[in-house]
C-alpha cells in the first residue's frame, strides 16, 4: 500500500491512500456520519429554474439558423419565387372553375343565404328557447322570490370560485 508522510507540521501520523474515510478514522467517522441529512425547502428547484436562462431547443436553433442562412445568402428570393410559381397553377384552376360554373355557384350561395342558414338558425334558436322556458318553469315551481334566487346564484358562483382557487393551489403545491 502506498503510504507517505503528509503535512509539514512535524506530525508523525500518516495518511494512506486508497482507504475510505471510515477506515482512516473509524471512531471519528462514526460520529460524523451521525449528522442528520439536511435539504432545501420544497419548491427550491422551481425557484432556481425561474432564475436560469435556458437555451432554445436544438430544433428551434436549427430552424432559426437555416432561416438566417437563407436570408443572408439571398436564397430566400429563389424559394419565394418558386412558391409563387407553384401557387399560380391552383390559382388559375380555381378561377377557371369558378368562371365555368358561376351560375351554379351563384344559385347555391343564394339558396344558402335565403333559405339554408335562416332555417337552421330558426330551428336552433327555437330549441334553445324551449330549453330556457322549461328551466324557467321549473325555477318558478320552487316558489322562491327574486332575492332568494339571487342569493342562491351568488352562493353557487362563490363556491365555484372557491373550488377553482383551491384546485389551482393544489396543482401549484404538487409541482
Amino acid at each position: 500500500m502506498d503510504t507517505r508522510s503528509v503535512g509539514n507540521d512535524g506530525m508523525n501520523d500518516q495518511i494512506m491512500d486508497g482507504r475510505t474515510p471510515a477506515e482512516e478514522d473509524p471512531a471519528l467517522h462514526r460520529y460524523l456520519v451521525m449528522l442528520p441529512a439536511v435539504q432545501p425547502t420544497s419548491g427550491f428547484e422551481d425557484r432556481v429554474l425561474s432564475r436560469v436562462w435556458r437555451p432554445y431547443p436544438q430544433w428551434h436553433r436549427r430552424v432559426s439558423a437555416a432561416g438566417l442562412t437563407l436570408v443572408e445568402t439571398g436564397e430566400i428570393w429563389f424559394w419565394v419565387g418558386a412558391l409563387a410559381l407553384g401557387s399560380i397553377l391552383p390559382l388559375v384552376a380555381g378561377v377557371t372553375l369558378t368562371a365555368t360554373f358561376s351560375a351554379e355557384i351563384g344559385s347555391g350561395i343564394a339558396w344558402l343565404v335565403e333559405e339554408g342558414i335562416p332555417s337552421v338558425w330558426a330551428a336552433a334558436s327555437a330549441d334553445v328557447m324551449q330549453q330556457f322556458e322549461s328551466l324557467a318553469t321549473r325555477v318558478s315551481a320552487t316558489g322562491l322570490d327574486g332575492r332568494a334566487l339571487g342569493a342562491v346564484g351568488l352562493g353557487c358562483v362563490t363556491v365555484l370560485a372557491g373550488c377553482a382557487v383551491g384546485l389551482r393551489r393544489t396543482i401549484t403545491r404538487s409541482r
Partner: protein
Amino acid sequence: MSLSGMANPPEISTATDQQVVAQARDGAEAAYRELLRRYERPVYSLIYRMVRDRELSEDLTQETFVKVLNALDRYRPEFKFSSWIFKIANNAAIDQLRRRGLDTLSLEGGPDATTPDRVDATSLQVGAGGESPLEELEARELGHSIERAIGQLRPEYRACIIMRHVEGRAYDEISDILGLPLGTVKTYIHRARAELRTALGHLKE
C-alpha cells in the same frame, strides 16, 4: 431521411453528469432538473454546515445553482461537474463567513439571531428520528457536541472534514474543489481530526 446520424440521448436518470450537462446545453428542462436533483442536497449540506443558517444556506445554494446553470456553456467536460459545483458552493460559503467575520460558530443560534424564530432558524438540527425519547435526547446531545466541535474548526478545516467524512469525497477531489495542494488538504484533515478528537474526547465510544 436517414436518422443514423442522430444519436439518441441517454436515459437522463442513468446518464453521467457530462451527458446531462450536454442535454441541458441543448435546452432540455429535464436535464436542468436532474442536475438540481443530484446536487441540491449535498451542496446545501456543505453550505449549511459551513454557515449554519438555514435561510442563508438556501440563499447561497440558490446562488450557487444559478451561477452554475447559467454558465453551463463554460463547463469543460474533462473536469468533474461535482468538483466544479462544490468549488463554487465552497467559495460562496467562505465569502459569506468572511463577510460576517466568522471563524467559528456557536451552536445555540447564529450571531445575528436576535429573535426566537431566528434562533430556531440558525440553530443546528441534530438527532435522528424514530427513537425513544431518551435515545432521542442522547442522540440530540451527541449531535450537538459533534456540530459544536465542527463549528469550532477553522473554515478551511471544516470544509475539508465535511467533504471527506460527510460527503465522502476523495482527497484529490477535495484538493481540486478547494484549490489547495493535496498535501495541504491532508494536513488540514489531519489537524481537523486531531481537534475534533480533542473536542469530542469526553464522549463515550
